[in-house]
């Protein structure tokens, strides 16, 4: 029996209206993505990574996207940030379809922090200042505003002049947060930001995310495969397995009484990495090959 059969009619999908705060900040409807690659023989191979995913995120909410590795979580965030174009479905920000938006404007409104910090060569100031420069902040104002962003990300002003690539991984990830915050995004997409960190640094980042949401009011979409992190900071979450959104709901609802069998198996750690149960053969969207 495959995973898809398990979904059955039990799946409790919130659709685009299930935000507790009324109007959705971010509404995703029927989102699909097929990755196309050129093959060695000059042809093309296609792989469906996401299929018909719908959910909505309320204003100032911390929304989790949880699921096993290879479920399509990173791909979902890349679509929200506009780094890839969906094959089908729609994404709306404040009710406006992003397909018609200028991409650079969208990305300043919807920022993203990646699994690895991907800092630019140069100082911390170069990194944070770059985002401010893109945002049109005059040169003389950049250091002041940049340092405020550093402090918001939990780093002291003395870090401004330090070589970004000589910092620890945890510090680098904080610089990546400061860089993303510099554009003053309305939504911040976080792609497993603790995955490359030791447990202590990871817990500091998790605390930072919670604090940012409370202090700045930024809407956060937090991707993780770590259930404890989701439980700790998310208000609601989407469970993404094998490229499909199987269930959306509040954290207590999902963790304590999941409506979907696949969610229950995932939460209990009994779902195999491909979103399949037992030794069943895959026939759903190909979930292999990592999150990309």
């Amino acid at each position, binding site marked *: 029996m495959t995973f898809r059969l398990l979904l059955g009619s039990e799946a409790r999908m919130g659709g685009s209206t299930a935000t507790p705060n009324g109007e959705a900040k971010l509404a995703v409807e029927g989102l699909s993505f097929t990755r196309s690659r050129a093959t*060695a023989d000059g042809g093309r191979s296609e792989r469906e990574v996401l299929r018909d995913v719908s959910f909505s995120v309320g204003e100032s909410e911390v929304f989790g996207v949880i699921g096993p590795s290879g479920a399509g979580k990173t791909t979902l965030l890349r679509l929200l940030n506009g780094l890839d174009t969906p094959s089908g479905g729609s994404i709306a920000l404040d009710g406006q379809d992003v397909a018609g938006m200028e991409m*650079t404007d969208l990305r300043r409104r919807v920022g993203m922090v*990646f699994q690895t910090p*991907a*800092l630019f060569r140069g100082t911390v100031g170069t990194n944070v200042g770059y985002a401010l420069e893109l945002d049109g902040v005059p040169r003389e104002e950049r250091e002041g505003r940049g340092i405020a962003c550093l402090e918001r990300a939990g780093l002291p002003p003395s870090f401004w002049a330090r070589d970004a690539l000589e910092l620890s991984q945890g510090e680098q990830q904080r610089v990546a947060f400061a860089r*993303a915050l510099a554009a003053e995004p309305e939504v911040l997409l976080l792609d497993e930001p603790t995955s490359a960190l030791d447990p202590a640094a990871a817990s500091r980042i998790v605390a930072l995310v919670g604090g940012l949401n409370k202090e700045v009011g930024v809407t956060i979409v937090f991707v993780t495969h770590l259930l404890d992190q989701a439980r700790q900071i998310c208000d609601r979450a989407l469970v993404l397995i094998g490229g499909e959104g199987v269930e959306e709901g509040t954290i207590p609802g999902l963790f304590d009484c999941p409506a979907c069998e696949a969610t229950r198996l995932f939460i209990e750690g009994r779902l195999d990495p491909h979103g399949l149960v037992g030794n069943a053969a895959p026939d759903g969207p190909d979930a292999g090959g990592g999150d990309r």
Partner: protein
Amino acid sequence: MTGYFELTWLDVTISLSLVGVLLVVALVQRLGIARGVFFGMIRTFAQLMIIGYVLKFLFDLSKWYWILLMLAVMLVVAARTAAQRDESRQPGRMTTAGVAIAAGAVVTMATVIAFVVRIRPWYTPEIVIPLSGMVIGNTMNAVALTTTRFRSEVSHQRGRVEAALALGATSSQASSRPFREAMRAGLIPTMNALMVVGLVQLPGMMSGQIIAGILSVQAVRYQIVVMYMIASGAAIGSLVAALLMRRQLFTQRHQLRSEYL
């Protein structure tokens, strides 16, 4: 002719023994290139013999359309060679290389013909063909280095490029560093040539004239012009190649086309 050391076919045949050394080394060490060496040897002989007759034919006819056809053939061969060095699966590599090489060669040659050598007619084959050949050959190397380096830089720095895009940078802002690195890589051989010309290696054009016993101030002047032409062709070719690569590696919506990396 005084000072002219004539080569007979026997002399040329004796020089074959030099390639024979390479062939023996390739076979003994099992380098797997013996076949290539053998055919390379044959091709060198055949190509130079044929081109000798073709050039004689062109020089005798001196018709503009034959000259243009010859230049077009040189351009296509150069574009193909540059595209073959790029091992990606991106379609249109040969067109990119061809446009970039043509841009560098045409702008440079037009300037030289119109303002430097001021030949009449403009297609005088004795001038146009050897000078175009040198510009096209050097521009080809610059273009091949630029395109392969651009792709590898974007590939290696993919995380940074996408981090910049995610912050709202345009594709040209996000790829500015790979762009610069690629152009620098494309122009380094030309820069080196400008620095050491005459000190380490005498350029082919001058060497030929020295051996033929006709080295003169004129030859030196021509060589200086040639060096500047090579620099101009490489710079324009490298810039056009980098601009075209950037257009191809990113979508209009500032997304990286990772399938081409």
